[in-house]
């Protein structure tokens, strides 16, 4: 089935939760809703589920308007952050409950429950109660209950956020396998850009109730249409710096507000003179030059964090905070002076309104927006 959200908006008690948006979800697609907390992800999911009625707009499923239809009539399944299970039912009965509502035969129910439990590695726990299970197992039970339904739309609202780090990695891998084999539309909400990249599919970037961009995940990542999408789709957020480009003596020079200058080269030389916001991701800012045409900036160390394999350094330059990511361990103290280098080839240029003007060349192809 195909789902279309047409001019959907949501306002509650005078507060806008979602501004007017259009979205199309294709059959068998995995759609990641990426955005910080309170960006509208959960509201959007509730509208898709039928738990909430949009203030304006329509929802069309295969062309049929289902906007007023209650959640019980819609063909959906949902998994929440909190591990929600029927505490008085065994795991078996938990998974079987949607099937019993559908009035399937006992043998069919048995088969489906066993199959789904095996898929989620909980086939040995079918006669236990949720309170006897660990967090990860409880969430697997909740997922099994959602997956067993074979619903047309599967909604997952940050399902891994309450689990241990390593458990998250494990379950994410398993979920990807499961999604590949199903015929449903999957909508997965998360605040973690890495998770979006790992899941692939399509990404809808949300910020403060607005859809900043949507498209295939890699496209959105490599070609953020605006500053909002760029910032949201990186962790740590993309660094944004204001510059002025001027033509001087036949060459282009870039000026930072504090007077630091740099020679404009690489793809940026295609830009017309004017004011821009340059966007650079942390991994393209380093402690050593990448190439000779790198932009050098001096500043003060605000925070240095070493994670074993990499170092994140927060640098204060004038009133702007820039985060750099480098391989290896590079200890620094708060307040140390430091020079950092921006890899010229990976800089994005946005205009002063925040719209993308020029993106870095990627594998030889140069395309401003898709």
């Amino acid at each position, binding site marked *: 089935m195909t789902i279309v959200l047409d001019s959907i908006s949501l306002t509650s008690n005078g507060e806008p939760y979602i501004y007017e948006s259009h979205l199309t979800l294709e059959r068998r697609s995995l759609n990641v809703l990426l955005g*910080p*907390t309170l960006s509208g992800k959960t509201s959007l999911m509730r509208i898709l589920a039928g738990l909430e009625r949009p203030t304006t707009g329509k929802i069309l499923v295969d062309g049929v308007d289902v906007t007023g239809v209650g959640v019980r009539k819609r063909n959906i399944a949902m998994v929440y952050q909190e591990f929600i299970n029927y505490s008085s039912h065994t795991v078996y009965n938990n998974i079987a409950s949607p099937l019993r509502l559908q009035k399937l035969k006992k043998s069919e129910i048995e088969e489906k429950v066993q199959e789904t439990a095996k898929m989620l590695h909980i086939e040995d726990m079918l006669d236990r109660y949720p309170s006897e299970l*660990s*967090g990860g197992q409880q969430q697997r039970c909740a997922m099994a209950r959602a997956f067993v339904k074979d619903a047309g739309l599967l909604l997952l609202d940050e399902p891994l956020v309450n689990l*241990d*780090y*390593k*458990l998250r*990695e494990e379950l994410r891998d398993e979920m*990807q396998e499961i999604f590949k084999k199903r015929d449903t539309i999957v909508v997965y909400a998360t*605040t*973690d850009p*890495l998770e979006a*990249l*790992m899941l*692939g599919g399509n990404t809808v970037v949300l910020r403060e109730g607005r859809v900043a961009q949507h498209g295939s995940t*890699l496209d959105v*990542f490599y070609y953020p249409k605006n500053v909002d999408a760029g910032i949201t789709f*990186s*962790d*740590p*957020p993309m660094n944004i710096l204001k510059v002025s480009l001027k033509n001087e003596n036949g060459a282009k020079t870039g000026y930072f507000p504090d007077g630091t200058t740099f020679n404009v080269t690489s793809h940026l030389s295609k830009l017309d003179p004017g004011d821009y916001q340059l966007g650079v*991701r942390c*991994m*393209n800012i380093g402690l050593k030059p990448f190439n000779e045409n790198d932009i050098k900036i001096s500043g003060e160390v*605000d*925070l*240095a*964090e*070493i*994670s*074993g*394999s990499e170092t*994140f350094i*927060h640098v204060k330059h004038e009133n702007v905070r820039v985060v750099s990511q480098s391989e290896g*361990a590079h200890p620094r*103290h*708060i307040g140390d002076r430091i020079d950092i280098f921006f890899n010229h080839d990976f800089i994005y240029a946005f205009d002063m309104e925040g719209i993308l003007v020029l993106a870095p060349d990627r*594998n030889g192809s140069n395309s401003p927006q898709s």
Partner: protein
Amino acid sequence: MARIDMQGIAHSYIPKPKQEADYAVKRLDLNWENGGAYALLGPSGCGKTTLLNIISGILDPSEGEILFDNKKVNGLHTRERNIAQVFQFPVIYDTMTVYDNLAFPLRNRKVPEQRVKIRVQEIAEILDLTSDLGKRASGLNADIKQIISLGRGLVREDVSAILFDEPLTVIDPHVKWLIRRQLKQIHEQLDLTMIYVTHDQLEALTFADKVNVMLDGAVIQQGTPEDLFEAPAHTYVGFFIGSPGMNILPCTIEHGHALVEGQKIKIPAAISKTGAAAQGSLKLGIRPEFCDITSSSENGGVPVRVKKVESLGNYHIVTAKIGEVIIKVKVPEKAQINPDSDNHVIFSQDHMILYENEKALNLQ
């Protein structure tokens, strides 16, 4: 400041424990140096919170002695141990202003109001709370509330150690760094012993000078973040640290090679020697960062089937299989990997570690 020593500490929640498995914390000796920043890292149920509660005094250990500056404190009440603790969710007094919240511990100890004012302002300055002092604490954001909880611990001048129990749990991911910065600043400016409990390896490694990795009630390795990354002494440490974790390949050693699922893997001479002499079950560990994908079997390339390539910005993670054993490889963004062509994995000879019964054999 305090030096904390734990000697022969063990704890069981059952009154008469009979076997190892009954203990939440198995017999250990740990030392926490004055002014150090430590992390207790491990999965849920590994005993890290139990250990923290033993240090703070909430729990009395079943066995062993705990000493603060060489003075035994077993049985001493929490408030007499001069420690401060920050919990998973912000604990503040709703009815008071931020100022009163910070002043509370001092006023309880009958510190003169003059001194209270100076101290509260000092700490508010360090924590960037000065502009919030007059506000009612209950209306503020979770991250500021956590900083206030932290401030209440710092405001007492006799505090010897600060304990953190997964303090970033309810904090918005986008502002976590703010609190981490405060913690780093406090560590540099105030010379306090800090102990941080978490299951998040990134948090532990960025916070601590020394990390204790725990599993099933025991500390399986203690080291700096670099140590844990480069030289994990236990397969679990290799697996737990790093994202993705270390590749652990069950193997046998024969004729100077390692055999994984029937495939020969080139190994350095030192490993083949120790491996040949070993009796227990062997595993070969190597991090995804130290592997590479090529198209040929030159240089020891081992044929693999590529199952998945995930693009993560400036690198890719390739999931491949030797037989049924999964291997993850980190390759730079520019690499073009075609799952259908003949792919081989090369393992860096300098970064292999051989494990016997989960414990490392050949760490330098």
